[in-house]
């Protein structure tokens, strides 16, 4: 006369709770992934507050100043560089000299204290990145920084996830352009037929043997 250990609906409860747990886990994981990719978490498209409301739209699109005038090391070394106060003053000592927006720049020029810009693109410190190699191999600024010439305040165009870097390192022919179009913001790599782009990959001697996706390329 053994007592019944499980009630009659135990089977149903078990099945329902297993299903619920699975659903819960799947739900939590996909919610986390969604959060991880959402602009709310990555900050893509959020204009960053700056000490001076510097506008690329103004200076690049309307005044047609070349990126190198301000980011002058981008072709030579790993970092593109943020312009020094002196660079702004080469124009603003003569024009818009009374603009209140430019007061921090003038103060900095007088005191020698740098203007503290807030970073927009910031890789983790364990990742190695190099501008000069990308620029020399025909990867345009716009491929990574988007249409920055249309932004009044600078905002990220990319969350800079590893998968994104790898995507291009696996298939550079999707993004490559002739070297003299690198600074051209309006150029679209897809305007060139794929055969020509593949030829460019060869001409610029970009390794296609998978070397670019080895961990030590970026984690060194």
């Amino acid at each position, binding site marked *: 006369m053994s*007592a*019944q*250990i499980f*009630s009659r609906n*135990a089977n149903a*409860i*078990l099945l329902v*709770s*297993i299903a*619920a*747990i699975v659903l*819960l*886990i799947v739900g*939590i994981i996909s919610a986390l992934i969604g959060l991880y990719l959402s602009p709310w978490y990555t900050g893509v498209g959020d204009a960053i507050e700056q000490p001076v409301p510097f506008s690329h739209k103004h200076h690049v699109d309307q*005044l*047609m*100043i*070349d990126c*190198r*005038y301000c980011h*002058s090391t981008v072709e*030579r070394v*790993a*970092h593109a*560089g*943020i312009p*020094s106060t*002196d*660079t702004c*003053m*080469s*124009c603003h*000592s*003569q*024009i*818009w000299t009374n603009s209140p927006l430019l007061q921090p720049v003038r103060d900095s020029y007088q005191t*020698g*204290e*740098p203007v*503290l810009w807030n970073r927009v693109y910031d890789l*983790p*410190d*364990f990742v190695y990145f190099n501008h000069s190699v990308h620029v020399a191999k025909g990867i345009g600024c716009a491929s990574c920084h988007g249409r920055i010439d249309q932004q009044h305040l600078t905002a990220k165009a990319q969350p800079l996830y590893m998968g994104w870097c790898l995507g291009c390192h696996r298939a550079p022919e999707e993004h490559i352009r002739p070297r003299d179009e690198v600074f051209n913001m309006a150029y679209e790599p897809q305007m060139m037929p794929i055969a020509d782009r593949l030829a460019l990959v060869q001409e610029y001697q970009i390794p296609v043997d998978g070397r670019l996706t080895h961990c030590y390329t970026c984690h060194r």
Partner: protein
Amino acid sequence: MQPVAPSLRRKPTVMSLLARFAWLPLCFVLVGCHIDMYDQPKYRPNRPSDFFEDGRSMRPPVENTVAMGSFEADSALFTGRLNGELAVDLPMELTADLLERGQTRYEAFCAPCHGLAGDGNGVIAYRGPLQVPTLHNDRLRTVAIGYYFDVITNGINRMYSYAHRIPPEDRWAVAAYVRALQLSQNVDADTLTAEERALLGGP
């Protein structure tokens, strides 16, 4: 474990017990999110510093010093002068590549003010109250080429120095390109071949 009383209708099953505490492993996920390797205590370019008084981790060179290999007092390449006089010759070979390099530098660094053709009506001069002189007059056409190197390196009156943005070799390339611009604006049409004149759209 307590003995399970069979009469209780809503007794917890093992699975529902597990389910009740299913959020526990998530704590490990949260604890696992270290970000200390994202921002390591080291300097990268342009990073601020609380060690130096002016807040810069990139140190300007100590006054009256130069980096090794970036300067030689008696070399025209770095000073634009030979024996104290402005250099008359390029300190390197004049090639098409050099002129092409000079063109990209000129268009990036000079054209905003001096204009693409060098006549002083670049977009900044056009927009603002900035008066920029033309590069096409007899004095500038005949001056030693070292003069252009000197102006780019040290600036002149209202024009700032571009020395920290344009390396010496590139300054010479710009100087050579300015010479090419001057030639392009000051050619006797009779010396051109018929084909060249056709390109210009003239007779």
